[in-house]
Structure formats: C-alpha cells, structure tokens
C-alpha cells in the first residue's frame, strides 16, 4: 500500500538559501510536489506539514462544506484501519496529528519524536493516501457540523463575519462559509468526499515542509513517499477572479451587549507587488496592536473597545482587508465614524516619517521572533511553500521593508484601498 521510494535525487533540482541560521533546502519530486526541508538536530523532534489546494474556495454554493468535511474525515480512519485504531496508533507512538483548513488550503501536520519517525510517517502517509471516508462516520460528523453551525449562527461574531464575507464576495466561493451551511451539509454524501479528494488532493498542488531531526536523504524519501501516493493532474480547476462589487451597509439586530462591526473590501492576493507596502502601512494603521492609530483613537483615547484591528489577508485571489471592533451597543456608531475618519486620513496623508521609522524598527528588529522554534519555522515556511513565495523571501524581507518609503505606502493605499467600495456590517446595532 505504501509506495516505496524508487526514485533518487538524480531527478531532483536543489537550491538553498540561508536565513540567520535557517537553511532551507527545496526541491520538486518528479510528480510535481514541492518539498522544503530545514535540517536541525537540536531537539529529537521531526515536524512535517503538508498542504493541498483544497480549501473552501473549491466548494460550490449548492454543496458548500464538502472541502471542510473532506479535510475533517481524512484523520478519521484510513487504509481500512478504523478511527479508533488510528487514534490509538498515533497515541501509542506519542505522535501528534493535526489538520488545518481555510479558504485556500487543506493541511495536515505531524509532530513525532525522531526515534519514532519511521512508524509515524508511515501512518501519516496512510492517512493521506487512503482515507476511508466511512459512511457512518460521515453521517455522525454531518450531525455535529449542523449542530455546531446552528449554534454559531446565533453568535454575534459569526453572524457578522458571515454577513461580511457575503457582502464582500457575493457568489464568489470566498463568500461561502468554510464549514458549509446546515442545508448544504445535509446533502453531502460519501461520493462527494471521494470525488473531492480525487480531484483536489493532487501531487502537483501539494507542498510538504519537513523540519527537524532528520537527514537530507531521509527527507527526500519522505517527500517521495508522500507525493507518490497522489496523482498528478496539470489541468486543475482554477479559482475564479474576485469581481469588484459595490459596498453595502448591513445592520442586523441582536440581543448581545456588544455590537460587532466589520468594515472592509477584497483587496490583494498573494504575490501582489504592493503587498509589503500595504502590510507595513497597515501596521501603522491598525495592525500594530497597542501602537496602531486605530487602537490609539478607539481604545487609548476614548476607552471604546478592548480590541480594534485591521489586516490584509491575501488569498490565492483577492483576500479581504478587514477592520473589526466590538463595543457597547450605543457606542458603535461613534466607533464607526472614528474608524472611517482614521482610515480616510491615512489614505489621504500616509504615515508620518516617525511612524514609518518605528514600524520598520519593529519589523526588522523583531524578525528573528518569527522563526524562534521548529514549530514557528514550520508554519512560516509552510505559508511560503503553499503560496509559492520566492526562496529568498526570508533573506530579502528585512531589506525590502527597509527600502519602503512613506510615499510608496501612501501611493499603495491610494491606488488599492478605496473606501467607496467598503462594506460595513454591524450586528447588534441599536
């Protein structure tokens, strides 16, 4: 069942870069999977993360939730081993298997002690290659999904977030709720999961990141072992472009004590040349926690909220720029006005030179913190691998940040961030 490695590195093209002490080896398997390897023997641990382009963006409105259920059931029995046996085998190895899921990706990560790595990786390969998608388990999990959806649909944060994504994306799959809707989950059958798996869990859409106490040769074998269990299909379904849409304001009643406000629009995708300018600018506007303008205006000056933030979340296609705040109901209109004014000022005038300097100091001085453990390296490099960042991204990140000017930030915001296209959602408005 497990395909033994027969290919060797002759077919594999290597390149490498160094970041501080991090050396990333990168190669492609001959059926198109992208492998990233960071060797580190400080701790007797091996971490592996695999990501597929199989997030909720691959769902349809009629049966939304297939992508999420597929991800969810992948770890509930494989290769004829039932879910209890599988769970027991991981537990008995002291290994941890986790799944992750978002709009773009479906991911699985394994953490194992290095002296148990062979058994644990065999199990991981089995999980990835031969999911049972058991019918009874599917029915049970559908019920759990539906209950959980109906519960979150009463929570103001979920109501607001769903309404916001729907306002931003309309019929685009980014507007769908990642875990589906009660009436779409109901319709999903085993065949849907089988087909979704077959069509979207492809070797050429697979990125694998391996970090830790393991040799290059072993990492190559793992890459082969995992990728060869998948088929290559170069004609993959593309993700529809995000169409521009008029902004709208939606207010929804709710008995909660706080109103939840979301404000924003779809703006950038991964690899966008404006990303770093927008990212750095947003740190000043609302991404920088206690030291951002939004926090200053909303929280520090007026005590209106515990948390207010803004971020750009680039997806494969245009992801949202989002501002969020929760505040006592009778303050939400005041908060809304202040947020609009703060964003508008920032777009018009850009950052001050002292703000820019402090933002750069933060980004550059704090760069080592992003990569201070095997786990954080795994997560960061997995993001780079999945979104096909250039290999020198880590090497050049601080230099690129350092070069950005206040004018470039202002220009990027003026060209890309159009408040006329923003939507506003307020749940719990009075």
């Amino acid at each position, binding site marked *: 069942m497990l395909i033994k490695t027969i290919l060797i590195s002759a077919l594999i093209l290597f390149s490498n870069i160094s970041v*501080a*002490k991090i050396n990333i080896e990168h190669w492609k398997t001959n059926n198109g999977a992208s492998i990233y390897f960071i060797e580190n023997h*400080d*701790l*007797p*641990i091996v971490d592996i993360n695999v990501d597929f382009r199989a997030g909720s963006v691959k769902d349809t409105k009629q049966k939304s939730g297939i992508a999420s259920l597929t991800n969810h059931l992948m770890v509930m029995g494989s290769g004829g081993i039932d*879910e*209890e046996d599988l*769970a*027991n085998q991981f*537990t*008995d190895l*002291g*290994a941890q*298997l986790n799944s992750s899921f978002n709009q773009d990706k479906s991911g699985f990560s394994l*953490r194992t*002690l290095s002296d148990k790595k062979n058994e644990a990786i065999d199990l991981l390969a089995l999980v990835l290659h031969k999911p049972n998608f058991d019918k009874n388990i599917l029915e049970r999990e559908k*019920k*759990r999904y539906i*209950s*959980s959806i*109906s*519960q979150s649909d*009463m929570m103001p944060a979920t*109501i607001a977030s769903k309404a916001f994504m729907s306002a931003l994306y309309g019929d685009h799959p980014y507007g769908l709720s990642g875990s589906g809707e009660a009436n779409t989950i109901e319709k999903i059958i085993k065949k849907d999961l089988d087909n979704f798996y077959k069509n979207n869990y492809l070797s050429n859409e697979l990125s694998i990141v391996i970090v830790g106490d393991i040799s290059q040769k072993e990492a190559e074998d793992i890459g082969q072992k995992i990728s060869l269990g998948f088929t290559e299909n170069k004609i993959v379904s593309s993700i529809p472009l995000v169409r521009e849409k008029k902004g*709208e304001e*939606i*207010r929804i*009643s709710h*008995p*909660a*004590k*706080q109103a939840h406000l979301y404000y924003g629009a779809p703006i950038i995708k991964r690899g966008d040349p404006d990303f770093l300018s927008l990212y750095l600018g947003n740190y000043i506007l609302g991404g*920088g*926690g*206690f*030291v951002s303008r939004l926090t*200053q205006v909303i*929280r*520090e*000056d*007026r*005590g*209106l909220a*515990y948390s207010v933030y803004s971020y750009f979340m680039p997806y494969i296609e245009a992801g949202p720029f989002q501002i969020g705040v*929760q505040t*006592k109901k009778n303050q939400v209109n005041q908060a809304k006005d202040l947020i609009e004014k703060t964003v508008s000022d920032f777009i018009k005038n850009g950052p001050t030179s002292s703000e820019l300097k*402090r933002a750069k*100091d*933060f*980004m550059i*001085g*704090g*760069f*080592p*913190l992003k990569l*201070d*453990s*095997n*786990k954080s390296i795994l997560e960061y490099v997995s993001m780079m691998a999945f979104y096909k960042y250039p290999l020198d991204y880590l090497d050049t990140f601080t230099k690129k940040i350092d070069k950005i000017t206040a004018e470039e930030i202002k220009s990027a915001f003026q060209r890309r961030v159009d408040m006329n296209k923003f939507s506003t959602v307020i749940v719990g408005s009075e």
Partner: protein
Amino acid sequence: MKGMTLNLLKLTFILCLVPFFAQADNEIQEITLDNGMRVIVKEDHRSPVVVSMVWYRAGSLDEVNGKTGVAHVLEHMMFKGTKKTKPGEYSEIIAAAGGRENAFTGADYTAYFQRLEKSKLPVSMNMESDRMQNLVITEAEFKKEIKVVMEERRWRTDDKPKAQVNELFNSLIFRVHPYGRPIVGWMNDLENMTYDDAIEWYQMWYSPSNAIMVVAGDVDTKKVFSEAIKYFAKIPAYQVAKRKPQVEPEQNGPRRAVLKAPSKLPYIQMGYPAPTLGKDGIKNNREAFALEVLVGILSGTSSARLNQNLVRKTSRALSVGASYSMLSRGGQSTFEMYATPSKGISVVDLERDLKIELKKIVDNGVTDTELNRVITSVIAGEVYQKDSVFGAAMQIGQLETMGYSHKIVDDYIGNIKNVTSTDIQEVIKKYFHEDALTIVTLDPQPLDKNKKLKGKPHAH
C-alpha cells in the same frame, strides 16, 4: 492582549498532562536580590531571542468583595505611564525594539512579558524596573481604561453563554473561597471602582519582594544576573500583606443551577472539589497524580474515553471534555467535566452518562494500555515542549508564583508512572460523591424572545 485574563483552571487544562511539567533538565539558575526579588534564568541558544517575564504573586485570589477585578485592572494600568514616561510610551519603545509584549492576570498571579531579539533584554528590564516602582495612575487615564475593561468583560463573558455558565459554576462550587469570583471582576464592582482602588492594589502587592523575574533564551546567565542587579536591586521592598489561609468549607449536598442565555444548544458543566499537590511536591502527591492520570484517560489524548464513548461510539454528545489542575496557590482545585448533548439527548441524560464513565472505572478499573498511553503522551510532551522558549518561561513563572519549586518537574514522570488503577479508583470513590457535586446547565433561549427576527437578517 494587555488585559488578557487567564482563568487558572482552564489554563492549566489546556496545558494539562503534556507540557506543564515538561522540563526535566536542570540548566535553570536563580539568585535572590537584596530586596527579596528573585531572578530565574534558563538558557536556550537555539535561536537569537529572549523571553523576559515579571511575575507578581498577586491575583484575583487576593481580592476582597466589592473590589473584584482590581488585580486585572491594575495590570491594564501598568501600561499607562510612569514618573518618567507617558501612557503607552513603553509600548512604543518595546515595539521599536522589535518586541512583542503583553500581560495576563490569573487567580494566582499577574505577569508581564516581552519577547525580544536577545540584545534588547535591557529595554525590557528598564521598563519593568520603572513601572515596578514609579507607576503613575491618574484619574483621567483610569476612567478611560476602566471602560476598556468593561468592554473586555462584555466580550469575554457577558455575550458568551459557556463563559457565563463557567462563571456561575465557579461561584457555586466556591461559596467562600475567592476562586469563586471571576478574575475579570463583577460588572458592578468595575462600575464602582476608582483609581484609588488601583493605586491601593499597586501599593499593596507590587513590592520587588513579591516579584519573580524569569528570563529564558539565548542569554548568558551571569550577564542577566548582573543586569537584573543593576535594574532591580535598588528598588526598596516593603512587607506585603500577610495572606490568611482561605479554606472552602466541606460541601454537604449537591448544588445545581440553571443559566438561561441565547443559544441553540444546551450545555452542562459539572464537577467536584479536588485536592491539590502539596507545595513541597510530596503532600497529596498520590491523590493529585491519580487525578492527573484520570483526566488524561478521560480526556487527555485522542484515544481518551469520553470522546471515544460519548462522541464517537454512541453519538450522545457533540463535544465533551474533562479538566483538573493539580497546581494552585490557593490550595483548592476542582475536577470538572463538560459536554454539549446531541440532538434528542438531554442534559440529564448526559449527566448520567458522565457519571457512568466514572462508575465504570470504580467497578472495572483502567487498563494498563490506558495507563501506558498517558505515560507515552507525557514523555513525548516533555520533549515537544522544549521547542518553546516561551512555554519554558511560563512554566517556571507559574510554578514559582504558585509557591512550588520549578524543580518538582524532575519527579513528574516518575510520579505519573507510579499511578495504579487502584489509586484512580480510590480518588474517584473518595472525592466524586453526590453530596460534593456541583452542576450548572445551560437552558438555551431564542435570540429574540418574541421570535420575530428568525430567518434572514434584514438589511437597510
């Protein structure tokens, strides 16, 4: 974020079994400054970063009625300026040094931390030294910040049904002990709190003799000690208030309550008072470790019983869990179970199901396979935790502020291995009886009492 309240019981549940004690190597060194402040350093040279924390032995445990939440409010005020700096100025200094900072308040402690590139450690020490002795709390800043804290309470508790259940549960199981009060404070107390209350708290507990600094990362221990002496040794200490033992009277009869809140699904939280590990690491050792292994068997691994039996095999529950923390400064703990019933199953059914799971162990014991799984998880978890410098510093700080030595971790695995099926049966029989039960259920209410708003949200 600044003002993150950590419920101690829940926090240690998250860390339960695996990472809490995961650190057997002894590269940890400490000194005590002349003013009584302790400095503990753990070197880890894998990455050029440092985590710096200052822990105060003061939390909601030390509050009095009418002033609940003041420990947490003071934590917020610690960011609001000193004799030398404006409100928020230190946050800017830390950010400009590339650092991440925050703070959290628990029942047993309040802690402030920064993560920095290793050469920036003095930036952190300078700030902590200054705000330990020179904090300025003005009425104007207080009035704004107390509003932020009230928003935090609304967000964290008032609009979250399970958080409300938990708050009610704690206040029922602890009728006398201060663990019965919410860390964030009752809303009424927040509304009536003044800046004098915050100043009083600061003057009562923020003596260097009541503080422990923990530094972990790519540092040289001797250099850290000499820096710490430079920044902290001159701060005058004062005698903090003597703490009186607070013991919850024995419970003589089940306590039940129902909480109504907007929700689709019901929910149940039930539990019993439980013993804690003695401060010497030896007293109550056998019982505490038996409970620790029990919670692992019920809920600690992917093979655990509650999920297997109630969610996967019988679909009685949508979700289920158990928690227990053996560590506590206040000398009290609880063993809790909670569950969300599946459609058609009532909270009464689930209460019975959860009790049956305990009864099965009393009748039949646990298997060697189950005991071994817990041991395997603990051993692996100990290795995995070494990957997190932050986790290492957290662990040292928590143990030490709760009154334990961080060295008790050395005996953790040995103690876990010693637990037998009989030990577990005995603690269940001794502590989990009907008269010691506390149970709170959530009675779900519709969003709108008139049910007019069901269906599509209206846009305008």
